[in-house]
């Protein structure tokens, strides 16, 4: 009897856990490798809200950077590129938002270590309803494999 109750409790706890994990689905995450000594980089991914309720991305952090913020690059008709900070990103139920180069990106500010040679970077995304979602984002080189040896 006691075992059954524990099993049931465990089942519900686990079920809830996996349900919560499925609310927010992160795909195609990556972080741009930048030259050693560079203080800034950017992370990209697709964030999908599969929950029935709307959610909001309210904060980001990473071990490799002093701070992380969501920004969007905008290029006007004259070719002038500017960035705007997005403090809170609305994630309507059922929608996927793409963070990509030249658009929305996670700005990694004050890199504490070089990303060169690192396989991946941990990004912690904090959602209003779904709580914290940890993302292991592969580091992708900005140059092609032969880059820097072109003559």
């Amino acid at each position, binding site marked *: 009897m006691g075992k059954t109750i524990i099993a049931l409790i465990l089942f519900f706890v686990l079920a809830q856990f996996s349900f919560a994990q499925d609310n927010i689905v992160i795909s195609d995450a990556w972080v741009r490798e930048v030259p050693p000594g560079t203080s800034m980089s950017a992370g990209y991914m697709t964030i999908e809200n599969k929950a029935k309720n709307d959610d909001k991305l309210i904060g980001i952090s990473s071990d490799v950077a*002093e701070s992380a913020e969501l920004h969007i690059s905008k*290029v006007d008709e004259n070719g002038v590129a500017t960035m705007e900070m997005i403090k809170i990103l609305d994630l309507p139920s059922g929608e996927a938002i793409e963070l990509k180069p030249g658009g929305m990106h996670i700005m990694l500010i004050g890199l504490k270590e070089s990303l060169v040679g690192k396989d991946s970077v941990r990004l912690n995304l904090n959602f209003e309803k779904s709580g914290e979602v940890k993302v292991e984002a592969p580091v992708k080189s900005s140059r092609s494999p032969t*880059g820097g040896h072109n003559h």
Partner: protein
Amino acid sequence: MKRRNVFKILISILFLILIGWGIIVYQIIDIKSKADFYGSVYEREALSFTLTDQNGSKVSLSDFKDKVVLLFFGYTHCPDVCPMTLSIMNNVVEELGDQADQVQVLFITIDPQRDTVAKLKSYIPYYNESFIGLTGTPEEIDKVADDYNIFYSKEEVESVSGYLMGHNSSVLLITPDGEIFLRYTQNRMDPVSIAGDIKRIL
């Protein structure tokens, strides 16, 4: 009567030859103003400048007289657009293969306050060792940006990143005869197509 016909035929042939030559000459003269380049045709004089490269040497535009120059303005604290553009320029150079040495990529900082010679040295060659990063005094940078119609401004944002720069992020293609011939805005950054334009010009 017969002679007249022969004369007519000769005149016609001559006429056709002339038209043929006309078309060829027209194509040679007009090859640059054709609208089917991937970049948008800009056609302005590339004004001369002298700035300091990542090795501390003075570099002038005239140093690359026999090359196609890909010139753009940016800053090393730029997290998104500038690394993306540098990475694309590397792809363009790789795409050119044997002709890569006939192209010079120049990156001019619009943030000379933070982008020193040493900073550029650790930043620019990472993308491609042939790339040249240029800095100068704020006045020198102002002058070049103005000459090239490049708007930039320091933007104090709420972000903890200190300050960011708003800047014209287009890549300018300068021909060996010193003309800013094409311009690539951020929505025209396909490396294969850019390399295609360069191959046509070379």
